[in-house]
C-alpha cells in the first residue's frame, strides 16, 4: 500500500494544555495544563473535589449561544486544520467531502438542565428551543452543514474509542474512494453526567493522574477537540497541500468482557493492534513509540501493558493524559495530533506524573524527553463495553 494514499493536510486541537495543535504539543512537553476544580458549568455537590482538565475559558468567551461547547471546540479545531492545510472548505467539491466526528457526551441525551426543568414541570421556551436544536443537529451532520459539505457523515459513539475510530474509518472512506477528503476527529465537553459518573464508578482521582505509575490512583476527565483533514493523493496534488503525516493502518476489536473494564489479558486490544499493523504493512520494529490510552486506572494500564508486551515488545510507551486529561470521545483524536507532532519533531515527550515503575505491569513509560528516528507510531484507545481501536500514523517525511 502506498504511503501517499491517505495523508493529513492539516490538523487542529484545543484542550487543557493548548488552544492550538502546536500549543498542545508544547504543553505536553512542559506539563503545563489547566487542571482545576470544576468550572461553573459543572454544579456537582460532591464534598470531595475532583479537579478536571479544562479548556481555557478565554478560548470560548465568544462562543455563539446556539452552539454547544462540543460543537464550538470541534469547529475551532477544524478551522485550524483548514488554515494549516492552506485551503478553504469552499474550494473542495462538497459531495466528495465526508465528516466523521467521535463524541461520547454529545452523542447522548445529556440535556441535564432541560431534564431537571421537565421533572419540575417548568420547561421554558428556551428549553424547548434546546430540545429542537438537539433534534436538528446530530454532531457530524451539523459539522458537515456548517462547512457546506454534502458527502457522507457519521457520528461515532464508541465512547472513549470514538476519536480513534473516527480517524480509522476516515482513512477507510478515502481508501475505498467514498471521499476525496474527510474531516475527522473527536470532541467532548465536560458536563455533570460524566463528572459524576466516573467518580461514582470509583475510577476518578482527586490527584493528578499518573499513567502506568505504581502509585496511580485513577483518571482525571477533561474536555477538548481535535480535527484532522485527511486527503487522497489527487486532492493533495491538485491543491498542492502540505503533508503533516499519514494514516496508515486501523484496527478495531471488541472484548465482549465487561461493561466498564477491559479484558484483563488485553485480548481485544492485541487483535486491534495487530490488525492496525497489518493494515499499515508495518511490524513492531518499524514503530518509534506508542501513544497509549494510559488513563491511569488500574485495569486500563494493566490490560494495555499486557497487550503492548505481546504485540509491540520493547516499543517505548508514552502516556499523555496527565497533560490533557481523559477527554473521552475526543481523546483518540487529540492523542493522534500529539503523536504526529512528536513524529514530525522527532521528540518523544516524557510521561508527566510517572515516578515509580510498577513491577506487575513490566512496563516503564517514557521518563524523560528523548529523540526518535523511526517514522511511524501507534496510538490506541480503549472504551467502555470493551471496544478497542488502534491506528498507525506516519511522519510527514515517512513516504
Amino acid at each position, binding site marked *: 500500500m502506498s504511503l501517499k494514499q491517505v495523508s493529513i493536510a492539516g490538523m487542529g486541537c484545543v484542550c487543557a494544555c493548548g488552544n492550538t495543535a502546536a500549543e498542545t504539543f508544547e504543553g505536553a512537553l512542559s506539563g503545563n495544563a489547566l487542571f482545576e476544580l470544576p468550572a461553573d458549568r459543572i454544579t456537582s455537590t460532591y464534598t470531595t473535589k475532583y479537579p478536571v482538565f479544562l479548556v481555557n475559558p478565554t478560548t470560548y468567551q465568544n462562543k455563539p449561544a446556539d452552539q454547544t461547547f462540543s460543537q464550538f471546540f470541534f469547529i475551532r479545531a477544524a478551522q485550524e486544520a483548514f488554515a494549516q492545510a492552506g485551503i478553504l472548505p469552499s474550494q473542495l467539491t462538497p459531495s466528495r467531502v465526508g465528516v466523521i466526528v467521535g463524541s461520547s457526551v454529545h452523542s447522548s441525551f445529556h440535556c441535564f438542565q432541560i431534564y431537571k426543568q421537565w421533572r419540575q414541570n417548568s420547561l421554558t421556551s428556551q428549553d424547548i428551543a434546546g430540545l429542537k436544536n438537539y433534534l436538528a443537529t446530530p454532531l457530524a451532520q451539523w459539522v458537515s452543514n456548517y462547512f457546506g459539505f454534502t458527502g457522507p457523515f457519521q457520528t461515532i459513539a464508541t465512547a472513549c474509542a470514538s476519536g480513534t475510530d473516527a480517524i480509522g474509518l476516515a482513512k477507510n472512506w478515502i481508501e475505498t474512494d467514498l471521499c476525496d477528503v474527510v474531516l475527522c476527529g473527536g470532541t467532548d465537553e465536560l458536563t455533570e*453526567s460524566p463528572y459524576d459518573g466516573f467518580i461514582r464508578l470509583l475510577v476518578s482521582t482527586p490527584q493528578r493522574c499518573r499513567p502506568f505509575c505504581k502509585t496511580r490512583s485513577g483518571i482525571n476527565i477533561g474536555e477538548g477537540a481535535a480535527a484532522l483533514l485527511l486527503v487522497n493523493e489527487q486532492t493533495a496534488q491538485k491543491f498542492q497541500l502540505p503533508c503533516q503525516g499519514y494514516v496508515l493502518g486501523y484496527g478495531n476489536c471488541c472484548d465482549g468482557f465487561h461493561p466498564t473494564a477491559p479484558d484483563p489479558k488485553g*485480548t481485544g486490544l492485541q487483535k486491534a493492534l495487530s490488525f492496525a499493523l497489518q493494515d499499515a504493512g508495518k511490524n513492531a520494529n518499524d514503530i518509534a513509540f506508542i501513544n497509549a490510552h494510559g488513563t491511569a486506572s488500574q485495569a486500563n494500564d494493566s490490560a494495555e501493558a499486557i497487550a503492548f508486551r505481546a504485540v509491540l515488545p520493547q516499543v517505548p510507551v508514552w502516556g499523555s493524559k496527565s497533560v490533557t486529561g481523559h477527554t473521552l470521545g475526543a481523546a483518540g483524536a487529540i492523542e493522534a495530533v500529539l503523536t504526529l507532532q512528536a513524529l514530525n519533531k522527532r521528540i518523544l515527550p516524557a510521561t508527566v506524573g510517572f515516578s515509580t515503575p510498577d513491577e506487575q505491569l513490566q512496563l516503564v513509560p517514557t521518563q524523560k524527553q528523548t529523540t526518535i528516528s523511526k517514522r511511524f507510531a501507534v496510538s490506541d484507545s480503549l*472504551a467502555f463495553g470493551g*471496544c478497542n481501536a488502534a491506528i498507525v500514523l506516519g511522519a510527514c517525511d515517512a513516504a
Partner: protein
Amino acid sequence: MPLLSWGLVMLPKLFINGFACLTGDAAPEDFAPFVEVRKLRRAEQISKNVLLCAFRALEQAQLKDTSHAKLGISLAMGAGALESTLKFMQSIVEDGDELSSPTAFASSVHNSTALFLSMFLGIHGPCVVTGQLDASFGAALLTAQQFLAKDMCEQVLVAVTEDVNPLLVEVLQKDPHVFDPFVYQPHLPATRLAGAWVVSKKPTAATQFVLDSIELSTTVDVRTQTQPLLPVHSCAHSVLLLANHLEQKKDFSLREQFAGTILKIAGKPYVCA
C-alpha cells in the same frame, strides 16, 4: 453491475444472510432457545431487544453454533440508551451527586449495548457504534460495508435499537406543533424498536436477499428540510420498513427522508446462480 452508492460514490452490494425485527419489547421467554434469561438481568431493555433480534438473525445465517471470530458489529442507536441516561440524571436529581447511580451511568453509554451483543453472541471482531438520531441506520450500513471492504471480518451484524424518549413524547402530547417544522405523527407508536441483519459482501449458503442499491444523499439546510418522524423519529423506523419488505420475500424498494438525509434501498430475494 448493480452497485451501492452514497451520492456519487459506488460501493459493492450487500447480501443479507439473516434478519429479524422487533416492535415493542422482548419477553423473557423469547430468549429460551438462546440463553438463560437470568444472565440478562443487568441488560437494559433496548439491549435485550436487539440481542433477541441478533440471536434470530444469526440463527437464520447459520451462525448460531459456529465460531464468530470473523464477525463484526455495526450498531446504530438514535439517541443511545435513553432509559439509563434518564435514570442516571434522575438519580442525580433525587439522590444527589454523591449517591447517583454508577450502574445507570455505565448503562447509559452506547457501548453497553454493544457489549451485550459481543458478550452473549461471542463476537470478537470490529465493533463501531453510530449515534446520530435518524441518520444512524444508513451510516451503520456504510460501516458494515467498510468492515467488509477492508476484510476486517467476513460478515457483519448490523444492529439497530431505539428507545422511547418520554420527555419528548410528553412535550409533544401537550403541544403537537412544538417542534415545527419537525413532523409529529401521533399514529406512530411511542414504542421501542430493534432490528438485526447479518450481511456479507459475498453470498453464503444462507443468503436470502441481495441489496442491489443503497443510496444515502444529503441535503444542506437541515433546519428547513428536516422531517424527523416524532415520536418515533429514530433510525429504527427504517429498520421496521426494511424488515417488512424482507418479510414479503419479493423485490422491494424503500425511500425514507430524515433530517438532511434521504435513504433509498432496493433489493430482491437472492437466487443462487
